[in-house]
């Protein structure tokens, strides 16, 4: 066993906050990178004196709580509109129900989508970074809650017009929706198994026996591909412009994330398959 000296400096003022004389095991840090909670001092490239920089990130929330907060809003607010809570629409429609079956179907799909997300957040996902700053959470919640209320308002409106191609359009859209939800879930399971190996055996995700994972032949982030697919099918199912607009925004954001992830994969793995693109097979 050997002992290390550790000094902790404030990241902004560089003044010494504290000095630790005999440190056995701790977390460590290289200039510019932030530490993971579980890193061990001994294993990192520092000499016998380690310098750590302390930075106050402000109020933070754990990732699990973040997603719960973001998803519970859309789940519940949509239902308020579906059941036409008084004052959401004009009084004579209060607590009435729509004559169109597609409206009930849309409610089931939307509720299923966010319930699935909540369950995945609690039981499936494993998160790399510990937390997210409070400001970002407020912004994200405003986005999710606001948009879901906006599109729920139109779909459940007393003057809602069902799709132009009727049952045919709704049924095809429903099939596509279900397939995308299953695909998205399959990818999340696959990614979860991958993370289980820990930092030692880092590999990129590969297609397996599940046909939904075969999208991995073509894209780096099929979870985003399926997510976009689910929302596109929901737009077609409801034939509602606000839904299409929300889908477009989500697509733009997810493309940005997918491209980042794709680039990270290429940088890390020399044997990364060249056929793969970020999010849309052969295109984007």
């Amino acid at each position, binding site marked *: 066993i050997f002992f290390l000296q550790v000094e902790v400096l404030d990241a902004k003022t560089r003044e010494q906050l504290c000095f630790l004389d005999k440190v056995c095991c701790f977390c460590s840090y290289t200039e510019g990178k932030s530490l993971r909670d579980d890193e061990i001092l001994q294993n990192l490239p520092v000499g016998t004196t380690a310098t750590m920089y302390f*930075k106050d*990130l402000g109020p*933070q929330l754990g990732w699990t709580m973040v997603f719960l907060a973001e998803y519970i809003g859309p789940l519940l607010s949509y239902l308020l509109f579906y059941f036409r809570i008084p004052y959401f629409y004009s009084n004579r429609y209060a607590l009435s129900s729509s004559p169109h079956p597609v409206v009930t179907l849309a409610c089931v799909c939307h509720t299923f989508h966010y319930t699935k997300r909540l369950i995945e957040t609690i039981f499936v*996902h494993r*998160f*790399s*970074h510990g*937390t*997210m*700053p409070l*400001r*970002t959470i407020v912004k994200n919640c405003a986005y999710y809650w606001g948009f879901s209320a906006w599109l729920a308002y*139109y*779909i459940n*409106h007393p*003057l*809602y*017009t069902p799709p*132009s191609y009727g049952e045919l359009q709704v049924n095809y859209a429903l099939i596509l929706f279900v397939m995308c939800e299953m695909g998205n879930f399959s990818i999340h399971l696959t990614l979860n198994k991958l993370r289980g190996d820990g930092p030692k055996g880092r590999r990129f995700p590969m297609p397996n026996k599940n046909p939904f994972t075969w999208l991995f032949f073509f894209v780096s982030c099929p979870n985003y591909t399926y997510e976009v697919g689910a929302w596109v099918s929901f737009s077609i199912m*409801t*034939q*509602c*412009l*606000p839904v299409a607009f929300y889908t477009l925004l989500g697509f733009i954001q997810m493309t940005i*994330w997918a491209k*980042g*992830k794709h680039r*990270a994969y290429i940088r890390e793995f020399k044997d990364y398959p060249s056929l793969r693109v970020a999010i849309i097979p052969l295109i984007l």
Partner: protein
Amino acid sequence: MSAAASGTSKAAHGDVAAKRKKGPGALATAYLVIYNVVMTAGWLVIAVGLVRAYLARGSYHGLYYSIEKPLKFFQTGAVLEILHCAVGIVPSSVVLTGFQVMSRVFLTWAVTHSVKEVQSEDSVLLFVTAWTVTEIIRYSFYTFSLLNHLPYLIKWARYTFFIVLYPMGVTGELLTIYAALPYVQKTGLYSVTLPNKYNFSFDYYTFLILIMISYIPLFPQLYFHMIRQRKKVLGHIEDYGKVE
């Protein structure tokens, strides 16, 4: 899932940008000088037009009509500035510039041009005057900066006149939007109602009210940002004046 948490991203990004960009090349500089000279000239034309029309009519009323075309042309032309930022020959944020330019374009076309009844309002003159003086100073500031011969007077004007012009312009803009409201509501301008095939609705009247409300958080932020900039840019005069 890998959206990064914000930290001191702004400062770091600025440093990286300074290291990467060495400023616009010779061709870009020449183009920008021409652009800024043309814009200065354009807004001078508008200023002269306003003065001449006032002297001819003898009143402030209805001066908008005498400068309507050059106003539309040169204010809309400012959209090029978004392109300049996007391409990288101007070191400003695309989002910020886009926001500023589009809000001007919105007022010019979607309010003043679209609602003919407000064109004779005095509030229009208020913001047109504010814009004209501001833009003449701003574009000459950029012109001289690009030529590395910035007279202190222009720099001082740019960072001082806004103290009055900014609130003046905002007042004119808000009053104009407010004046447009009854006509928008009556005619249902730019509005879509339910039911329709795409299950969408848009109420321009409500939209205009929301725009007016958005001035409340936005204007103070921009105003105090300019005041802080003023202290930074003009602040050194006080240092020279100190005698210990």
